[in-house]
């Protein structure tokens, strides 16, 4: 049995099912992320763990204990909120010390532990200030310190960075990751930002419409998506609709998947070939011809949209530098590596390729 077990969790609101048979487990010290689009039930699951709303049915076990029978304030679960939820009437110190009072910690120890927690989030020098005038990043650091100082059995974070600006988000997510490893705590982190999820998680659980699509390491989620939804939500996809051109390319590569209704390839796996050189296509690659429709320069990468026999394809060029430039209308060729192709069936599940 894992440290945290959620078994067939189900949550119904009036006439609406927000969670359907969600089962997952989290190990001690693991950083586990719930990733999914808005409304997919991430917050609902997290709040069920915290105890703010109970499940309709299902089981939650933490360290072998049935969590659903314990009222929320006795669960010993730390929570970090999207809107920080810092108490505006208390100083930074008192905010962090707040959770130690009902635990009957001696005053001297409170001072020591709060000081230590504030140092960890680099707020030691602001202890006596009121939080109201502080920046979002600082307020969220208070929220984190307040949640970890009680040494909870589980740390829950619901989109803690989504109200911060992009740069701070990257900075703070690394701090959170480092802190979690340092205090060695099981953490469940909610986000709808795929990059964030890939960057900080040990494992990611991708959710959609109240169901789990896939659970796996960031590499598995990105590199080996098990459903069309995961493939599209994490990263981007070129969709290849069935066509005679596609058939001929597939047979060239010797690939078959009878149940497949959709083929796909990620933009960064497409290789743009120089149009002039008649490089011989190997049987590990299919070459498609087309024309440049649009060139978008993004600094560290560039996107080239091509019109091809297979339909519109976007190819991503890493490190385009100063020279790469494609004029609309220019002829272009792109190579699709054999192992870059993914196939999905009508229900959106990944189909194993034959051949």
């Amino acid at each position: 049995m894992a440290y945290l077990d959620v078994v067939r969790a189900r949550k119904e609101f009036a006439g609406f099912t927000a969670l359907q048979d969600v089962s997952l487990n989290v190990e001690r010290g693991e950083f586990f992320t719930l990733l999914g689009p808005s409304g997919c039930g991430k917050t609902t699951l997290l709040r069920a763990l915290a105890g703010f709303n109970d499940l309709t049915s299902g089981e939650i076990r933490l360290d072998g204990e049935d969590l659903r029978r314990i009222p929320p304030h006795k669960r010993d679960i730390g929570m970090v909120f999207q809107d920080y939820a810092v108490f505006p009437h208390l100083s930074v110190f008192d905010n962090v010390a707040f959770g130690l009072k009902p635990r009957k910690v001696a005053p001297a120890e409170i001072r020591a532990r709060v000081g230590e927690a504030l140092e960890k989030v680099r707020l030691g020098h602001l202890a006596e200030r009121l939080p109201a005038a502080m920046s979002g990043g600082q307020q969220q650091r208070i929220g984190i310190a307040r949640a970890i100082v009680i040494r909870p059995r589980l740390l829950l974070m619901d989109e803690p960075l989504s109200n911060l600006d992009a740069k701070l988000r990257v900075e703070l997510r690394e701090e959170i990751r480092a802190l979690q490893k340092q205090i060695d705590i099981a953490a469940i982190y909610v986000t709808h930002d795929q990059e964030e999820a890939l960057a900080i998680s040990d494992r990611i659980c991708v959710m959609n419409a109240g169901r789990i699509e896939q659970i796996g390491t960031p590499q598995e989620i990105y590199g080996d998506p098990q459903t069309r939804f995961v493939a599209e939500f994490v990263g981007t996809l070129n969709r290849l609709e069935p066509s005679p051109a596609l058939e001929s390319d597939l047979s060239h590569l010797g690939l078959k998947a009878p149940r497949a209704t959709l083929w796909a390839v990620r933009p960064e796996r497409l290789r743009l070939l120089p149009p002039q050189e008649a490089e011989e296509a190997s049987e590990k690659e299919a070459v498609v011809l087309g024309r440049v429709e649009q060139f978008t320069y993004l600094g560290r990468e560039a996107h080239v949209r091509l019109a091809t026999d297979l339909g519109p394809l976007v190819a991503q060029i890493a490190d385009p530098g100063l020279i790469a430039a494609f004029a609309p209308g220019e002829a272009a060729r792109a190579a699709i590596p054999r192992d870059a192709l993914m196939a999905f069936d009508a229900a959106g599940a990944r189909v194993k390729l034959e051949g």
Partner: protein
Amino acid sequence: MRWNFWTLVAAFTWGLLLLLLFLPVGSVLLGGFYDAQGDATFANYQRLLTEPRFQRAFLNTLVVGFGGMFGALLLGSIMAFCLSRFEIRGSRFVSLMAILALVSPPFIGAYSWIVLFGANGLVRRGLRDVGVSIPPIYGLAGILMVFAFKFYPYVYLMVSGALGNVNRSLEEAAESLGLTPWQRVRKISFPLVFPALSAGGLLALIHAIADFGTPQLLGRGYNVLATEAYTLYSAEVGSNMSMATAISVALILLSMIFVLLQRYLSRRNVYHGNLINKPVKIRLSGWRNALAHAAVYLIGFCGALPVIISAIYSFRKTRGPVFQPGFGLQSYERILYNLGDVVRNSLVFSVSAVALIVAAGTLIGVLVARRTNLNTSLLDGAFMIPYVMPGIVIGIAYVSVFNGPPLALTGTALIIVLSIFIRRLPYAVRTTSTALRQISPSLEEAAISLGYSPFRSFLKVTVPLILPGVIAGAMLSFVTAINELSSSLVLYVGRTITMPVRIYQLILDGDFGTAAALSSLLLVISGIAVYAAFRFMGRDERSLL
């Protein structure tokens, strides 16, 4: 639904509403259908519709209601427009005068105007000496004038808030699109302030319909529904309770109709401006500047005039009820020696009512704001009812229901406290629920996750955050409570007489000096409470509405 603390609060609230609101109001509704012998009849409503005296009262009520409203709209809009768009010297002083008009004790307005423009009024006499003769202020014209100057602050406070929130970019955009200033006002500014304008007008209208003191003192035969209800109720001989209740029903219906009408009119007009570009005040010059200043100061001065007059008259030398030349403290001495218990009554009743209001209002406010479901939105609606109930109707309703066992409350202090309580409770509920809606629920959840039980989280986190608002609300409730006249007038007996009731009697008895002194005292007490409220939440005049 699980039975927990909040279910109990909901049950308690419904019980409270049932006992203190639905039961009395229901009995008023039904009471109109019985005659003096207790037989069911339509006669009362028939009389109401056919008898010329009541027809006239009905019509007169509409006339003073709308007249008062238009007067208030006119004065209030001028004031709001000038103060929010032009630089006016001493604008804080002007809005202080508006607050004075708002919290000035009832009746004093009417009385002060009589002092100046009555049959023997100062101004009238002065004018007569120089050969100008103007009619005395009695009758419709007087009532309308008093209403306009008493109720304009409602419009002013509402509209100036809205005008201050009109994003200037909107007007600039209109200007760049080539609209003339007049078109700009008509097409942009007016629709934006319409909700505030109509809400302010509605407040003036409802208060004008419910006001009974002003027509009573100034009317001289100009009867309105409120005065008719009171006359029928209080007649020494032939008191006609069922007819009084029939009139009360008409009053309730009128107020209701106007509330619904206003809601309907401003239903689409909820604009949430983003205030990146705040309106600036223009510095006028020349005759325009003089005109704006004159208008603002004249309105402010006339509105505050009752307060000024009563303050001056309270210090005039008197012998018995008669003024003598010179100044003295006899009026205050009389309060000290004879009216101590009246002052004490007022203070005790108001403080108890406010204590109840704060306790119940906070709990119910939490219920309405935090436990949102059908049940609580119904509650929200039910709290609209006391809002449109004229005080005189509540008084009559309470007398008719709590007159005998099982709840014989007539003549007790409790009945007065309860009548104030139920009328002011909706405001407290609204204050608390608005304050709570601005506090993120995650604050309490944070406390729970840190190990505090839900109740302790509420005490430790939410209560400290809403406390300033609650205290400020309590102070403002206190102001209305201690100035409450019309329901107490129906409910008082000798032992439970309050300051406003006593002022009313003193004016009727012709003891103007003591009335002025008592009014001034009332005003000082109200002023302290308003000051305290502003200390707690910053100076926000609109919280007075």
